[in-house]
């Protein structure tokens, strides 16, 4: 039996990217290996650790649990898509640096995207709401404290900038 590769178009970080993939290729692997967007990471490949998180139409989802062929027609945002420009940091990214909301950096892109989505819907989250929002992202380094502080700080700063924590 033959298993055909499919030609699809993915909308990634605002650009249309045509790819040819086997159906079994996860969105994660497609982003990493074909589009060379290596900011999303594989931690478990069974949907628990959250290191593979990307935004699908602004909502955090596990890219290891989607096949690339299911991902057409959505606006896909990766960490590369929320980075303003070469050498620049978004307020969220800068907040994570300010509080040292990471150590090894492996879960960090996922945390940042999740935080973006949280603040887009809830610009003044309580600590409990932040904990809830990131509870699907496992970090083994930080014990979460400095991550939570980063999101609190980012929320404060973004409110003060009078800038909507807009959908990237």
């Amino acid at each position, binding site marked *: 039996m033959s298993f055909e590769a499919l030609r699809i178009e993915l909308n990634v970080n605002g650009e249309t990217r045509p790819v040819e993939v*086997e159906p*079994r290729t996860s969105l994660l692997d497609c982003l990493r290996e074909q589009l060379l967007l290596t900011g999303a990471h594989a931690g478990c490949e*069974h*949907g628990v650790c959250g290191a593979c998180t990307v935004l699908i139409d602004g909502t*955090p989802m*596990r890219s290891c649990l989607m096949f690339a062929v299911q991902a057409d027609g959505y606006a896909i945002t990766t960490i590369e898509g929320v980075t303003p420009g070469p050498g620049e940091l978004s307020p969220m990214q800068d907040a994570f640096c300010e509080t040292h909301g990471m150590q090894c950096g492996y879960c960090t892109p996922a945390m940042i995207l999740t935080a973006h989505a949280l603040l887009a819907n809830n610009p003044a989250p309580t600590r409990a709401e932040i904990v*809830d929002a990131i509870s*699907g992202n496992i970090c083994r380094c930080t014990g979460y404290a400095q991550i939570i502080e980063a999101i609190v700080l980012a929320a404060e700063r973004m409110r003060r900038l009078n800038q909507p924590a807009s959908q990237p």
Partner: protein
Amino acid sequence: MKPAAFNYARPKSLDEACAMLAEGDDVRIIAGGQTLVPLMAMRLARPKRLIDIARIPELAFVRREGDTVVIGATTRQCALEHDPIVRADVPLLARVLPFVGHAPTRARGTIGGSLANADPAAEIGLVAVTLGATLSYREGGATAEIPAAEFFEGPMMTALSATACLTAVRFPVWREAHLGTGFHEINARRSDFAFAAASAQLALDGDGICQRLALGIGAVTTVPLRLDGVSDALIGTRLEESTVRATVTEALAGIDPMSDLHCSADYRRRAAVTLAVRAITDAAKAASRGAHVL
């Protein structure tokens, strides 16, 4: 953990999907994929063809129909969390949804996917059984219905054949004035599969006497249980804690709880009693506040 190879099809209608399902060997439906994809990654499921029904418009909806709320099988769990009809008319489902997995899995996972997966610890299945929901499915060209209690046959096993496709679930709406819901589960970490769970919906009359009660126990046995005996015994009472506890304890004395890596059968039985009492207590408090509150 890469799945075994497969072909992928995205039918545009339910008819097309059913025709594809009928066609072949080793064909499986995918909607949200939150339970299927991990199984495929571990090669425990290895369909040769995946039929993606996630975007078939006729399968995603929330509607009132008389005294029921009908929900299309591919409606996303996160959509249901925020849906005003669900919150108003199926409050037990709305109460339970935040406990289902994590926000990122609810963003993709569907109500039909959870039901068809039939994990004994799944919250949505518990609510379906507790409220006496009816599931609709298509098999080839024919549509059929089955009560939730008969739908679940065992762990990860349902009455659906390999070529059937769940299409909708119908929840009865309670119209009583003083309505309340309660849900409690115990798990190692929040959002893990529960070791035991209890869901309750009840109505009180103007004097605080229980008029109607539905109690379900999940994750304890291989399928969710509805304890009709408990309902019968508690209707007409004021739901005093000791009465509730004694009634539930008696009802659960004869069940055969699961035992596994996480807990013993006895633990599940005892936890079920505790959780049921708490769920009923919460529901009663909510009902006595006057309007149905989540």
